[in-house]
């Protein structure tokens, strides 16, 4: 019923507009088309000016409403992201200035030079000097932006520091898996053809480096203040590791591993205090369309102190023992070095 009324209302508005439109055409014939045209001209010129004023006010009002909801007030959660925020503010300042100047000129000229019987258009076909000015100035400004931008870009996409903690991130429809290299700091080899329901990442357990690797799903733990190097894979289609709080994105492409590193600088607990939001969570959003569940492909990152991280890591059981439960030592040895030594004594079997 409500829908029916809405449609009826819409049709009614249409009919009214149409009748007004038709009537105004007749009126213009009666009044004289030239006179109507000039009247329309004045009205539209005035609305153009009004649109400029209201529009600029609207842009300010929109900023008031939504600036607080962007990620700027809370700041970047990674050290490298600070540079991006800085770059963003410079770009906003430059483009904002150009935006205001050009929009004001556009609508002001439109209003000021509306048709008038007292004025003749000024013949002004070109001016090399003016054109050189507005070729050179944008070129210089853009060159500056490019230089600043590329410095940040090369820093962020360059090699990760040697002491970075490596975490392998794997995307699949529709979730995230993480693998930590264990005490030997080397991730075991993988071959996608080894994938089974239990060995879901296709880890090659004949590779001794794989025996102490830890595999967790959905939630990734990382320590604060240390560079984290993500090695990113996808199993089925292209995904994207989107870490908006850390100002980072990197695609996960099947068959072509990618890497991206960053240094988290605020723990989850500190960020909850800082934002005043007790539910604050660092989330991994998939930022590359990956199928019907794309919007639900959520991962969680817990940034914690080094002690908390070490404790958490020590509690994790190597994947080898979940894939081959009969090989698991009893009781579970939580010391990671011992786990590795034990694991190496056991022959890998598939």
């Amino acid at each position, binding site marked *: 019923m409500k*829908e029916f009324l809405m449609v009826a209302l819409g049709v009614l508005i*249409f009919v009214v507009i*149409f009748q007004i439109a038709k009537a*105004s*055409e007749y009126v213009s014939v009666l009044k004289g088309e030239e006179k109507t045209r000039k009247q329309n001209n004045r009205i539209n010129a005035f*609305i153009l000016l009004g649109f400029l004023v209201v*529009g600029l006010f609207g842009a300010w009002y*929109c*900023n008031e409403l939504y600036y607080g909801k962007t990620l700027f007030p809370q700041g970047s959660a990674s050290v490298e*992201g600070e540079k991006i925020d800085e*770059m963003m503010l410079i*770009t906003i300042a430059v483009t904002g200035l*150009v*935006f205001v100047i*050009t*929009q004001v000129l*556009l609508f002001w*000229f439109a209003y000021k*030079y509306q*048709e008038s019987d007292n*004025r*003749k*258009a*000024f013949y002004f*076909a*070109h001016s090399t000097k003016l*054109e050189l000015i*507005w*070729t050179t100035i944008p070129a210089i400004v*853009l060159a500056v932006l*490019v230089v600043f*931008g*590329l410095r940040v*870009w090369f820093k*962020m*996409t*360059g090699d990760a520091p040697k002491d970075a903690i490596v975490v392998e991130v794997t995307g699949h429809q529709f979730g995230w898996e993480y693998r930590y290299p264990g005490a030997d700091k080397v991730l075991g080899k993988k071959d*996608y053809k080894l994938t089974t*329901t239990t060995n879901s990442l296709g880890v090659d357990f004949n590779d001794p480096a794989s025996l102490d690797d830890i595999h967790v799903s959905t939630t990734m733990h990382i320590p604060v203040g240390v560079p984290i190097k993500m090695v990113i894979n996808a199993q*089925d289609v*292209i995904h*994207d590791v*989107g870490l*908006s709080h850390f100002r980072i*994105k*990197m*695609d996960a*492409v*099947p*068959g*072509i591993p990618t*890497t991206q590193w960053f240094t988290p600088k605020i723990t989850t607990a500190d960020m909850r205090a800082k934002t005043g939001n007790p539910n604050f969570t660092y*989330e991994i959003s*998939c*930022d*590359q*369309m990956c*199928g*019907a569940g794309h*919007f639900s492909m959520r991962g969680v990152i817990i940034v914690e102190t080094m002690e908390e991280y070490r404790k958490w890591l020590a509690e994790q059981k190597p994947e080898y023992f979940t894939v081959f439960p009969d090989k698991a030592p009893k009781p579970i040895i939580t010391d990671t070095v011992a786990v590795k030594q034990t694991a190496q004594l056991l022959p890998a079997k598939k």
Partner: protein
Amino acid sequence: MSSVATLHGADVHGGHDSHHEHHHHETFISKYVFSQDHKMIARQFLITGIIWAIIGGLFSVVFRFQLGYPDSTFPWLEDIFGHWAAGGKLKPEFYYALVTMHGTILVFFVLTAGLSGTFANFLIPLQIGARDMASPFLNMLSYWFFFLASVIMFSSLFVQTGPASGGWTIYPPLSALGDASSGSKIGMDLWLVSMAMFIVSSLLGGLNYITTILNMRTKGMSMTRMPLTVWSLFFTAVLGVLSFPVLLSGAILLLFDRNLGTSFYLSDIVIAGKILPNEGGSAILFQHLFWFLGHPEVYIILLPAMGMSSEILATNSRKPIFGYMAMVGSLFAIAILAFLVWAHHMFVTGLNPFLGSFFVLLTLLIAVPSAIKVFNWLTTLWRGNIRFTPGMLFAIGFVSLFISGGLTGIFLGNSALDLHLHDTYFVVAHFHIVMGVASFFGMFAGVYHWFPKMFGRYLNNTMAYIHFWVTIIGAYLIFWPMHYEGLAGMPRRYYDFANWESFKMFGGLNEFISLVAMIVFAVQLLFVFNFFYSIFKGRKVTSTNPWGSNTLEWTTPIKPGHGNWPGEIPEVYRGAYDYAKDGKEFIPQNVPVGADETSH
């Protein structure tokens, strides 16, 4: 002079020199269906484009229901879409199909075929002084291949597994594997076949436009006297002819991967519990092939709007376009750069950072010719005597939107910022403003300006003004706040944000945007109504040159027949922008240069 005319006449009419005779043996089929008259083909493109625009626009309204009211159900959605909206709520698969088809339809079927197809066909022969295209037959084929592509794409909407749903960019492996998404089943094959037909259409059209412009200009119409519309359509055609074949090859390889077991784009894949045998392919290869077209495509959409706006701004400011040669030069620069920036869509694919830096540099370089264009448009308005016809308002709106959307390109083209903004609503806002809405404004400007030439009647002014004001205000209300969603990291192509702590706070804004989108869509229907109503009932055009314009199309009769000029084709003596020169309001191109006239 007459030798040119006769030659063209022979081409067009298969031996009949005079176009008067021609009318006698025209049938309904040859006049309205399989017409070889460029003006009729233009109208066919325009009307088909309008139909597609309604469908594509409607899809966006439907998926905005989901974004605006994610917690509500609408039983009538189930009445219309059946199991795709079971319980009155769109299924995610269907949501993604709508998003994909909205993009595909508007980018290709409306803003490429509907825009270029209409105005290149209509304006090129009329503005350069030719009786028709170089090959009217290929021109007719161009429309009918487009029609065929339309039929195939339309039919894909009705297959059981749904139309393509992997985004209009159809990245494999998602688009290559039926197991990855229901839209990647038969719907995707139909999408690819339809696009292949579409590309054939656009190549036939493009080759024709280039040939016509290079060879069939009337006497005196040197390249540097051509109106900017023709220049922009020329560069558009060159871009299309050079880039569309690359997409075609990419699409064919994708068809092979889908159906013949090849591994161009596939490697190391485990999907739905199955280990695929494909090895050694590269999913990234497709993105290179796609964006090698995809980026020029943006300018294929934008350049005609630029050209038409330039023409309309000059005519209605009653002033020469400022810096004609700079305008042509910047079009040329944009066309060249369009081929050298495609990888800026791929900054986060793991692209070599050093290679990426070149794409940053070249991308931001595009801002220079763009800035030249903007300042030249502003200077064209300066000290003019401006008439706000509906076409003029849309041309001014185009400039405003081009500024707004162009400036955000400076953010996205800078790869460091793209690391944060990539695939967020900031991108949605950017390309909708600069390429979507701005090009639509160029198209509307063109329709309002040349409607009298197309149909011999005017569109209703009152409806036109309502259309303009609601559309420009609505477009800004829809897309401006989306920048803030993007700055908050909100990803595009999300069906629902309810489970996200980081993104769920924009619910109220999304509802507002959806509401505005519906109003704006309704006003487009008002335009469509005005369009069809005015074809039959609009106020009749009484003078051959209602806008006081200089270009040649206004030297034809009010309703030109096939062949355009009943007598000889006029000779051209000057550029297209002699407004306000020597105390005269305007001097058409076919007026000889007077002895006392100042040269410039």
